[in-house]
């Protein structure tokens, strides 16, 4: 494995150094490890190893710049991996107590009983599932249609204005959507659709879908744009219309990128927190009947956001929230792996003709 060869390369370049440099390298590495350890055990003491490290790094930079640069970038990689690893591991570790207590019923029970100390995630998972489905139904077809418009239909001048505008709109913070949803859409829906309560999964799904739209449009447009013009020309020169070309050549050739865009949109919808938190009333109860999308429930994300303050004093509840985080993390990671695999395949199919 290349990790091993990396280590070898490091030790080889280490061997080429003179004595002071070797000692400096060793001291630097040790001090950094000490700093990490100190942060976990005794945060106040971080400053000493950190100072040592800075001193060593400065010495290295002036005495052996190339080696120092290499070591520093390696350390940056290692630190990044350690940080990301700590986040992941910590998430899982903190979820263990509730899993011990509830066992499999953590994932099969809809009970969320703070006083009885019994927690099941089904209600939240249902809420997340429903909002994600609604959001995907909004963002996927409309997003792909928008991408087709920008890349295949719109004249050049329109395309050059609309594409950056859509990218810009992808940046609207979710709390702004949430605020609009909370202040305007909630009362609108109560008024016009006579909803009994403030907020519903339907509104959240809709808002999240609109929120994810620009991302889906922009990423699928990139995929459509990557289809070589020569391929489209070949279709048009056979006397097919532009629309037939889009349907039979461009979209099939870009389908991996488009699916990656849709998956990205699904990921966004899954993880969207603020809009759900402020629009929903966060009732920890399944809607009755289950398919009542106008009902008021809670999602995994809004459960964490709305409860982790109060859960601070109750370790089991906090642990249950970590379990919700783990569920989210696992699903999102799976989606991300799937979309990366698809994208890699796309590069292979399209790479063949270039």
């Amino acid at each position, binding site marked *: 494995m290349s990790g091993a060869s990396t280590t070898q390369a490091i030790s080889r370049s280490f061997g080429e150094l003179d004595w002071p440099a070797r000692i400096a390298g060793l001291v630097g590495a040790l001090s950094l490890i000490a700093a990490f350890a100190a942060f976990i055990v005794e945060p106040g003491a971080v400053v000493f190893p950190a100072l040592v490290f800075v001193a060593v790094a400065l010495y290295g930079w002036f005495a052996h710049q190339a080696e120092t640069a290499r070591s520093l970038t390696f350390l940056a990689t290692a630190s990044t991996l350690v940080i990301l690893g700590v986040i992941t591991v910590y998430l899982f570790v903190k979820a263990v107590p509730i899993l011990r207590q509830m066992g499999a019923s953590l994932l099969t029970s809809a009970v969320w009983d703070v006083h009885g100390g019994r927690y099941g995630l089904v209600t939240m998972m249902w809420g997340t599932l429903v909002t994600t489905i609604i959001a995907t139904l909004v963002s996927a077809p409309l997003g792909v249609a928008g991408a087709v418009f920008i890349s295949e239909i719109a004249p*050049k001048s329109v395309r050059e204005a609309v594409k950056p505008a859509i990218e810009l709109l992808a940046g609207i913070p979710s709390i702004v959507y949430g605020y609009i949803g909370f202040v305007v859409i909630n009362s609108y829906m109560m008024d016009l659709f006579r909803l009994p309560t403030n907020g519903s999964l339907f509104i959240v799904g809709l808002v999240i879908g609109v929120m994810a739209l620009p991302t889906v449009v922009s990423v699928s447009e990139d995929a459509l744009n990557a289809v*070589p*013009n*020569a*391929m*489209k*020309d*070949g*279709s*048009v*020169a*056979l*006397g*097919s*219309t532009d629309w*037939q070309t889009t349907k*039979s*050549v461009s979209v*099939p*050739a870009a389908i991996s990128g488009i699916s990656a865009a849709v998956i990205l949109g699904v990921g966004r919808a899954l993880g969207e927190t603020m809009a759900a938190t402020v629009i929903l009333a966060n009732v920890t109860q399944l809607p009755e009947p289950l398919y009542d999308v106008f009902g008021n429930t809670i999602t995994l994300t809004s459960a964490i956001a709305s409860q982790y303050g109060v859960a601070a004093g109750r370790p089991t509840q906090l642990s249950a929230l970590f379990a919700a985080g783990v569920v989210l993390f696992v699903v999102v990671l799976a989606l991300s792996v799937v979309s990366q695999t698809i994208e890699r395949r796309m590069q292979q*199919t*399209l790479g*063949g*003709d270039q």
Partner: protein
Amino acid sequence: MSQMETQTTTGETEEQIRDEWLEYDFEGESALSVEDLDVFYGNDQALQSISMDVPEKSVTALIGPSGCGKSTFLRCLNRMNDRIDAARVEGTVEFDGENIYDDDVNLVELRKRIGMVFQSPNPFPKSIRENISYGPRKHGDIDTGLVARLLGRDDRDEEEELVERCLRGAALWDEVHDRLDDNALGLSGGQQQRLCIARALAVSPDVLLMDEPASALDPIATSKIEDLVEELAEEYTVVIVTHNMQQAARISDQTAVFLTGGELVEYGDTDQIFENPQSQRVEDYITGKFG
């Protein structure tokens, strides 16, 4: 320099001389007649007032140094230049009694009747079979979809027949007949180019524009393509761009020579162009002194 000499000896202007060189009388109908065609890419002019008549059911070769506008000219003949944002075309191209640059021209119908094979192969990322039947499918001539099958209007036999005929026509059948369902992107460059020729044949156009169809082929495949072109000329009008002088001499009935700057310098019977070129520049180009 040599032009200057011509000019002084005959006392004619350069323009008149060139018009003479371009004058080409042929018997029969012309399939395409180009009149004062200018093409601009942004502010750069790629073709300078080209006028020529392409006789029908014959092979017309376009030769000239790289970058002189042969591909550009070819793309004008079925309005593929419409698809380049920067390109602007002025002048007329008459086909079937109509100027193809008129507003009410049906581009789909036009391109069905004037087919094109591109300079670099561009097969679709689909199976070989689907590549061939793509055009007829889009024109509704072949339908093997679910509904057609249910209604008993399935054209799979026609499709098989068409695929075989076109692949044989493009000298590709023997190599791929046992893997028609493989992805066309898995073919070699030369095979891909022949597939593109077969794909164009499947639409059976009146005019076939070929942009260096043999540039990526080995000698055997090349000679097959050459045979094919000569065969095609019995029914189709073929306009072919080539860098290979011998090829142009072998297969074409008439040759047009473009030179750098996008001008058509000489146009006439292939034999006459190669054996007795009027212009010194063309002679230099053909004998390899220049270009």
